[in-house]
């Protein structure tokens, strides 16, 4: 019988009086790349820590491949790999020594642990730095070493807790590429992130968590569809006409209109694509020419806003991560 990769029911966890998870329920099929999306403090790391046997749940059942994470922790541990927000490696040892040590602790003999370490160092582009102590590694190298450590036993499920937080764009693309290749191999991946783009790029399914519970679950497309059929994005020929354009769009579409940072652009949600055509016709009749327009699905940013009533993280969207 095939158990779900992850089955979490009514999971509760509090730190003292601070309730972090409040009856969270989640099920993940094998072979999916599953994104857990939520703002800081939503309980993402706590959830991953419990799944990876680092923390004990207060209440509820948590199973990984049908195995209980508390009572069968060792059996769970031999099938998972974890890469946390902070690299779980020994800074005093070299990269090579780290992998050899973890390999032995995963069950390889001293000799095969060494061979496996070389293989992974090579695969993750760390051969050159292998002899240096990890304390001297850059953030990107440390993260790669950490993922390599999580991959030692080719786990059935890999937990990546905000794997690209604090990485430069190149290292971030490296990590994304690694995740895609793992997914091709059939490894189940659970990925937490605050970056909507990351979830959109990588995940087949998503759970949005906020305040310790799942507030929405489904494929990225499901989630986008749940808040309306799409978004119309318009770029005006003349930025000065933006407020006139906003008035026209509001009266036709009957929804709120968002002005973008780019002073000539604005967007609005449309329930029915035919209304979008009417809106464009009205704009042109009002003497407001448009340079560009598109009708597309809403971004996950808009999904999050619609679900929680607050933006994911103002400073992140401001940096243009959407």
């Amino acid at each position, binding site marked *: 019988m095939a158990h779900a990769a992850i089955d979490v029911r009514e999971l509760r966890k509090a730190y003292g009086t601070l309730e972090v998870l409040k009856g969270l329920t989640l099920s993940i099929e094998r072979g999916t790349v599953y994104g857990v999306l939520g703002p800081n403090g939503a309980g993402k790391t706590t959830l991953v820590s419990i799944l*990876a046997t680092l923390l004990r749940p207060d209440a509820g059942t948590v199973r990984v491949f049908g195995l209980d994470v508390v009572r069968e922790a060792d059996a769970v541990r031999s099938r998972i790999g974890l890469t946390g927000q902070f690299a779980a490696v020994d800074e*005093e040892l070299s990269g090579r020594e780290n992998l050899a040590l973890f390999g032995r602790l995963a069950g390889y003999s001293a000799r095969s642990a060494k061979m496996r370490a070389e293989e992974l160092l090579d695969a993750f582009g760390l051969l050159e730095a292998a002899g240096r102590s990890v304390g001297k590694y850059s953030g990107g190298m440390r993260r790669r070493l950490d993922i390599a450590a999580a991959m030692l036993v*080719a786990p059935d499920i890999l937990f990546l807790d905000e794997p690209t937080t604090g990485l430069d764009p190149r290292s971030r693309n490296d990590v994304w590429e690694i995740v895609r*290749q793992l997914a091709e191999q059939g490894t189940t991946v659970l990925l937490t992130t605050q970056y909507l783009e990351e979830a959109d790029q990588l995940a087949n399914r998503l759970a949005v968590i906020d305040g310790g519970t799942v507030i929405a679950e489904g494929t990225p497309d499901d989630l986008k569809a749940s808040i309306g059929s799409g978004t119309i994005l318009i770029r005006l020929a003349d930025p000065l006409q933006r407020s006139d354009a906003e008035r026209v769009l509001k009266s036709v579409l009957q929804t709120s209109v968002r002005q973008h940072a780019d002073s000539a652009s604005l967007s609005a949600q449309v329930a029915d694509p035919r209304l979008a055509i009417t809106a464009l016709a009205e704009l042109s009749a009002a003497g407001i020419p448009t340079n560009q327009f598109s009708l597309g699905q809403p971004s996950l940013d808009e999904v999050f806003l619609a679900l929680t009533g607050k933006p994911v993280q103002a400073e992140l969207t401001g940096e243009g991560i959407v």
Partner: protein
Amino acid sequence: MNQPQSKLLMAMQAGKRPQRPGALNAVSAFVWRSWRKTIGKLHYLAIDSVIFPAVFLLIFTYLFGGAISGSTGHYLQFLLPGMMVYTVTTMTVYIGIAMKTDIERGVFNRFRTLPFWQPAAIVGTLVIQLLSFAAAILTTFGIGLLLGFKPEAGWGGAALAFLLVMFYAFSLSWIFACLSMVVQKTESLSTMSYLVLYPIMFTSNVFADTSTMPQWLGSIVDFNPVSLASASARGLMHGTTVPSGLMTTLVGLMLVVTVFMPLTFWLYRKKDKS
């Protein structure tokens, strides 16, 4: 697909899930790790096991020895076995510091997600600690020999005294290993070693015979663990063992191990990441 990517795929395909490691294999992995870290910091070990005992032996033998025992040679005969105990006592806190440091660092999370017998982390680290205890006791003994110390019960007595002091340091280490599971900060452990260990070491019979002290103080000092160990080491070294005294020491130390070892393992296993 470019070169590094195919290497990645190959590495992934090559990874076979090994059997869960045996407890001994896990311990030996930690012995290796701890050894690797110790040889990187040999100067610390040198301070503890050479400079510290040498300085104390010289000061006490030549500055105070004559005043305490009438002659320096006579005093060294009394002092040295206790000095072996004294030297390792301050080193027993290191296992606690090592464990606490691991728990505070990210690497603890990695250990937690691997399927080995978790207490191997403590046992493996302690094995290397025992080696450094042995080095410290032997150097202290060696310096004593150079200064003219003679074990009156011969080499056999000296060997038994060595074993006893090793067992003492082993037992005491479990107290600090256990404390490291409950203290908030690593610094608390070093503070504790100053606030608790130094008073205990000085109110012991390492430096002076309890029969020379006021009676009320003498009986307190006699039950100080450092005194018990020193008196027993002295007895074994010079063939003047009082069987009941040795028994008290051994039973006491065994009691410490039976309580603190399982307690440490239990606390370590149920320790959540902080």
